[in-house]
C-alpha cells in the first residue's frame, strides 16, 4: 500500500511540473517498465523447468526458418545469386533485431484482447504510462530463445564470410541490430495502436512483424521490384538489414540506390519511433471503454 501511495505522489509531482519534464516522464516510464518486467521474470523463474522448456521451444521454433534455408541449400548453391553465408548474414541480422523488439515489446499484440475484455481500463487508472504497462505485461523471458538463435546464425555468417572489414562496416553490424530492433519495435507499437480501432486484427500486425522478418531473411533480388520498393519507401523495413547489408557485403542495390543510404538506419529508426508514438497517442485518445 505504501508503495502505491508513493508512486501516485511521484506521478502527481511530475504532472504538476508541467510539460518541461518529458525526460522525467520517460525515465518514469522506463522505471515502471523495469519493475513490471522484473516481476514477470520472478514469476517465470518460479517454474524453472517450464521456463527452460518454453525457451528451448522458442529457440527451435525460430530455428525452423533457418532449417528451411539449409534444406533449400541442400539442393542449390545460391538463391537469387546469394550464397548461404550471405543469406545467413541477412537472416542473423533481421532475426536478432526482430528478437530484441519481440523481447521488449512482444506483448503489444495483446492490446486488442485487453480492449475487448475491459482489462485495459485497470491500466488507465494506474499512475504509470499505459504504453510501459502494456509493453511489460506478461514479459516473456523465453523470447531470448529467438535472440540467441539469431545471434548464432549471425556468428556463423561472420565467421564464414570473406568481408573486407573497414571501420564503417564493423560499425554497421551493431547499428543494424539496434536500429533494426527500433524499426521493428515501432511496427509493434503502431500495430497495437491500430488495434484500438480494429480490436480483432492482431494478425494484421503479425503480417508486418513476423512477415517482415521472414521477408528480410531472403535477399531482395528474389522479390518483385515493387515489393522491394514498398518495404524500402512505404514500410521502411528494408533499412533493418537489406540496405545496410548491401554496403557491408559490397553488393549492388537491385533498385540502383546509392551507397550512402546505408548510413540512414538511425534516422529511419528515429522517424519510425516518432510516428509510432504519434499513432499510439491517437489510438489511446480515441479509446472508449467497452464498459464490461
Amino acid at each position, binding site marked *: 500500500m505504501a508503495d502505491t501511495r508513493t508512486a501516485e505522489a511521484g506521478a502527481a509531482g511530475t504532472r504538476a511540473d508541467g510539460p518541461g519534464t518529458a525526460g522525467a516522464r520517460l525515465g518514469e516510464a522506463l522505471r515502471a517498465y523495469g519493475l513490471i518486467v522484473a516481476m514477470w521474470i520472478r514469476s517465470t523463474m518460479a517454474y524453472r523447468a517450464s521456463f527452460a522448456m*518454453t525457451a528451448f521451444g522458442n529457440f527451435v521454433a525460430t530455428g525452423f526458418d533457418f532449417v528451411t534455408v539449409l534444406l533449400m541449400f541442400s539442393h542449390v548453391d545460391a538463391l537469387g545469386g546469394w550464397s548461404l553465408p550471405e543469406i545467413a548474414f541477412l537472416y542473423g541480422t533481421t532475426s536478432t533485431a526482430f528478437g530484441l523488439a519481440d523481447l521488449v515489446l512482444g506483448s503489444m499484440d495483446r492490446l486488442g484482447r485487453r480492449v475487448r475484455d475491459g482489462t485495459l481500463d485497470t491500466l488507465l487508472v494506474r499512475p504509470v504510462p499505459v504504453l510501459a504497462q502494456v509493453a511489460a505485461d506478461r514479459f516473456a523471458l523465453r523470447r531470448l530463445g529467438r535472440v540467441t538463435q539469431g545471434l548464432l546464425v549471425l556468428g556463423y555468417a561472420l565467421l564464414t564470410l570473406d568481408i573486407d572489414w573497414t571501420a564503417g562496416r564493423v560499425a554497421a553490424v551493431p547499428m543494424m541490430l539496434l536500429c533494426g530492433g527500433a524499426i521493428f519495435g515501432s511496427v509493434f507499437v503502431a500495430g497495437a495502436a491500430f488495434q484500438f480501432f480494429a480490436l480483432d486484427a492482431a494478425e494484421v500486425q503479425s503480417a508486418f512483424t513476423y512477415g517482415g522478418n521472414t521477408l528480410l531473411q531472403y535477399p531482395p533480388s528474389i522479390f518483385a521490384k515493387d515489393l522491394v520498393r514498398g518495404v524500402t519507401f512505404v514500410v521502411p523495413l528494408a533499412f533493418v538489414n537489406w540496405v545496410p547489408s548491401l554496403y557491408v557485403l559490397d553488393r549492388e542495390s537491385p533498385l540502383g540506390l546509392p551507397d550512402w543510404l546505408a548510413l540512414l538506419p538511425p534516422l529511419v529508426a528515429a522517424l519510425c519511433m516518432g510516428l509510432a508514438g504519434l499513432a499510439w497517442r491517437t489510438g489511446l485518445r480515441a479509446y472508449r471503454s467497452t464498459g464490461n
Partner: protein
Amino acid sequence: MRLYAIVAAGGFRRHATYRVATAAGVFTNTVFGFIMAYTYIALWDERPQLGGYDLSQALTYVWLGQALLMTCAMMGGGFEDELVERIRTGDVAVDLYRPADLQLWWLAGDLGRAAFHLIGRGIVPMAVGALAFDLAMPASPLTWLAFLVSVALGVVVSFAVRFLVALSAFWLMDGAGVIQMAWLAALFFSGMLLPLNLFPGVLGEVARALPWSSLLQVPADVFLGTYSGTGLLSAYAFQAGWAAALLAAGRLLQAVATRRVVVQGG
C-alpha cells in the same frame, strides 16, 4: 449422430463470429503466401523439376499450405488449450457426465472449426494466389472432390494427435510445453516449411511416413494429381490408417485418464 452434427455446427458458427479476426488472418496468410512464393521461384529457378514439381505446381503447393494452415491446425488449433484448461480446473468431470463420448464430442467441434477455416481462411488466399501466379489448378471436379476427402482425413489425423496432447494434461499440471512441442512437430513434418519431397535422404523418408504428412503433403499431392486409381486409394489408406491408430490411442488414454478423475474425485 444428430447430437454430434449439432456440436459440429456449433464449432462452425463459433469460429464464424470472429469476422475481423478472420479477415486479418486472410491478410496474413496472403502476405506469407507471397513471400514464400518468391522464395520458391528463386529455388525452382536454380533447380527446375525439384522434388518432381514444376514451378507452377510448387507455387500451388505454397498457396495450398496457406489455405490449409488453419484448417489442419498445423500451428495448433485452439481446442487443445480449452480442453487442457478444463482438465486442469476439473471442469472435464462435467464433460464426462454428458450423455456423449468425450472424444467424439471434441472431434465434432473440431470438424466444424476446420470446415469454417477451409471456407473462411482458405478460399481467398488461394484465389489471390491464382490471380498473381500461374497455378496448377485441377481441371477435373473429381480431383477437387478427392482433395476434399484427403483434407477431411487430414483434419481427423490432426485432431487425433492434438487430443492425445491435451489428455497429457491429466498427468502434467501444465500442458503448455507439450502443446508447443506438438505444434513444432506438426509444422516441421507436415511439409509446411518445405515440401517433404525436398527433405534429404532418411529424414525425408521418415517425415513422409509420420502422421503429420497427412496434414499438407498428402492433400497437396492429391490436389496436384500425383495419385490416380489405386495410388489414390493407398494415399487415403495411409491417412485413414494413422487416423484410426491415433484415435484408438486417444480412446485408450481417455479410459485410463477417466479412471484417474474418479480416483482423485476431481
